[in-house]
Structures are given as C-alpha cells and as structure tokens.
C-alpha cells in the first residue's frame, strides 16, 4: 500500500513537535476525515531554519507532514512557500489515490505557517 519512504517517515517521523518562539504557525485540515496538521516554523537568513509538525491523522498524514517539514528546512522562504502537494507526493514515492489529500494538507499547513511568519514579520 505505502512506499518505503512513506513507511520510513511514518515509523520515524522527522521534525515532530512545536518550534519554540516560532515565527509562524499554520494549520490545515481535511474536512472529510477530520484530520489536521499544525506546522510551526522559524525563519533565519531568508531561509526556513526550523519546521516542526503535529498531526492528528492517518499514517499518510503523518508521513506527509514529516516529509514537508524535511523538504522545507534549509530552503529559501520563497522556495519553501512554493512546496506543493505534488512535491510531497513525489518525495514520498507516491500515495494511494484516496490518500493524496494528506499531501495537500501537509503542503497547506507549511504554506500557512510561512504566510503567518511573513505577516507577523510585517
């Protein structure tokens, strides 16, 4: 059902938690199933210095959040805010069709965290 990458990111998720003194907080949810993901980011030098997630959701939702934070860290803010569900899916080696919403949710939570940081930064 799941690729090895998905299994690995589900079993050993990266970047669990909440960034202390975060610059931005974002959340996205899947209205159909009630799952949701919260992402917090710290920005530094025009880059995403830190990104952490908390997810209430299925295995694919957890793996997607882990993957999107992994993709974001170290990227320029601009680049990171353009990470799409497609990018997450590609990095995960795909998800079953019915689970693609999980990648969307992860990308959405990251984007809204970065947007929040931008707003706060003024």
């Amino acid at each position, binding site marked *: 059902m799941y690729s090895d990458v998905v299994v690995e990111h589900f079993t050993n998720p990266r970047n669990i938690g909440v960034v202390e003194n975060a610059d931005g907080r974002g959340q996205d949810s899947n209205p159909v199933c*009630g799952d949701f993901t919260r992402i917090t980011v710290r920005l530094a030098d025009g880059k995403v210095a830190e990104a952490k*997630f908390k997810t*209430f959701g299925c295995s694919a939702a957890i793996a997607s959040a882990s993957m999107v934070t992994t993709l974001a860290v170290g990227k320029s803010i601009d680049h990171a805010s353009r990470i799409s569900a497609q990018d997450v899916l590609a990095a995960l080696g795909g998800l079953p069709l*019915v689970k693609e919403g999980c990648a969307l949710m992860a990308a959405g939570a990251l984007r809204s965290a970065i947007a929040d940081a931008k707003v706060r930064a003024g």
Partner: protein
Amino acid sequence: MRRIYLDHAATTPVDPRVAEAMAAVYRDAPGNPSSIHDEGRQARALMDTARERVAAAIGAEPSEIVFTSGGTEADNLAVRGTVAALRHKGDHVVTTAIEHHAVLDTVSELEREQNVRLTVLPVDRYGRVDPEDVREAITARTVLVSVMHANNEIGTIEPIAEIGRICRERNVVFHSDAVQTVGALEVDVRRLPVDLLSLNAHKFYGPKGVGALYVRKGTPFARIQTGGGQERDRRAGTENVAGIVAMGAALEIATRERAIESPRLARLRDLLLSGVRDAIDDVVVNGHPTERLPNNASLCVRGVQGESLIVALDLAGIAASSGAACTTGSLEPSHVLLAIGLSRELAQGSLRLTLGRATTDEDVDVVLGELPRIVSRLRAASPVA
C-alpha cells in the same frame, strides 16, 4: 516476521480440516444437486448432511435452514423478505443504531424507496438495547424487529431472549443477526424466541461466500432472488455445494470446541485488556464489561487516529482493525462508537483486537510490548494528546 492475526471479527482463516472437506467436494462430487443422476444425488446428499449439521448446531430443523451467499445476503433476505411478505399487514420496522450495515443500509433503503417507516433504537453506553424500548416502539403496523445477537465492533451481547419474548407477545417477526455469535456462543432456537437468524461461515473458520438464514417454521417469508427454485423456492441459484459442506463442517468443529475455546479466548482477552489499561493512559475500553463476545477487545486511544494505529501495528506484524476504516478516503467514525456516546475525536482513535484459535499467551505479550510504544510514538506527533 511471524504475523499475529487479531482481526477474527473481520474474517477467520479457513480451518485446514474444512479446506480439506471442500477440496474433497471439488475432487469427488462435481454434480449439480438439482440433477437426478448419481453425480447430482451425491452432491445433494452432501448438502443434506451439511444442512443437518448447521441445523443441529442451533437446535433447528434442517428444513428451517436456507443457505445464502453470506451474512449480508442472510440479513437482506430476512429484512427485505419479511417486509415484502407482510406489506399488506404493515410498514413499520424496528431496529437499533448499532446493527451491521447489512441491516442498517437495507432498512434505510426500504425507508427511502419503499416508504417503510423506521424506528432506530438507541443503546446505552455499553451498547445494550433496552428491551422496554423495543416494547414501546412496536405498533400495530410493526412487521419486523431486527436486533443483532452481538455487535461486531464492540462485542456487546444484546438481550435477544427478552426482546424475542416481547416480539412473540406482540406477534411481530423477530430477526437477529447472529453472525458474530454462532460458533462462539451457544445459540439454540428451541429456547431462543427468534424467528429469523443470520449465520455466516467465514466468521467460524469456514469460507467466505456462504451463510445461512434460519427461518422458523411458519414465519411469513418472501424470497428475494428468483430463478431455478432451489432451497425449496426460498433462494434461487445453483447451490455452492462445497461452501455449504464447508459451513457444516466448520460449524460442527466450532460447536464441539466451543466449551474449551471460548473461555480460553476470554482469558487471553482479559489479559490483553488489563495489560493495555496498565500500560497506556487515557484509553477507553468499549462494550459491556461482562455481556460480551469472548474474543473481542475494543479500545479507543485518545489523541491518535485509528488508521495510524492499525498501520503501525501492521508494520510491527500485528493485524488489527479500527471501527474507523479509512479506505475510501473519507473516514467516518464508526456509527457504533458514536451510538455508545463517544465523541467523534475519541471514536476516531478506535482499535479492535479480536482473538482467535491461533492466538497464544505469547501473542498477547507481543501486543502488550508493541502497542504502548506505538501509542507513545503517535501521541508524540499528535497535537491532541
């Protein structure tokens, strides 16, 4: 990795003795039981024996057993058949909020498309129906009461003897979906006042694709599948001879071994439940404390989502299930868990472990080793816990 299968409520593996009985049919009895030649008569004789076995296991007459393609068809036949047969008498059906979809979706469809009036009774927090609610729900127009014998998700056993007595008093047909109990508990229609009872071979180590409806002699009845007039004109279609033989063999074995097997499972289940309660905070055990199936452990783990529990257990070699099966993309929390009053969020964290013949003390130990670790890992990533 050795796998531990703890999803016996979903389906049981076929007993090797039963599989061999089927193989023997395929090898030696190729006939169609409607044929009058030797091959046909042999097939019929095998089917007759199987019918006797199934009947004997529940205290019925062989002529009261109608073989079907499974529990779903048995439920459909009971509900649709009774409503059709009694349409001239009334249009009201009473059932409960925790029935299997094979009953619930059927009565809903009848409500939507055939103007059947429906009363869906609530259950208490243990999942029990109050027989007095049944009594109050019955009206002069009631044609059928359908209450399952035990629930497939939370394992609660319903007071069907009392409910049946009330239906008798009021002269209303009573159907019980006994798919989860036949084979595991004593079910004897000589003592139990039920008119219709659904059975399903693959829940007692028989194959998928064969079940039966017990129809008490004299019960109004209408068939739903028409054709060659098999099963005494109650269910058309060439009989699944091997499946029927297998069902007979499987039920005979299950009945014979029940007195030892059911207490053994109950002990393991109790070990599992107390171990879980000791090792994991904030976990709710669903279902009735004593009136429950011997092999069912149903939990809700706060802060995590059922699917991720199942997948994590699966990766650890343990097959389990969740009331909330997120297969179609939309994760509806189980109607049963909502009916016993759980919040949607808690209901989403459900985990069902159903034990079976192969389950050992060691398996329980393995689960008690893995599960707490998995729960803490998932809770660490959860915004809720």
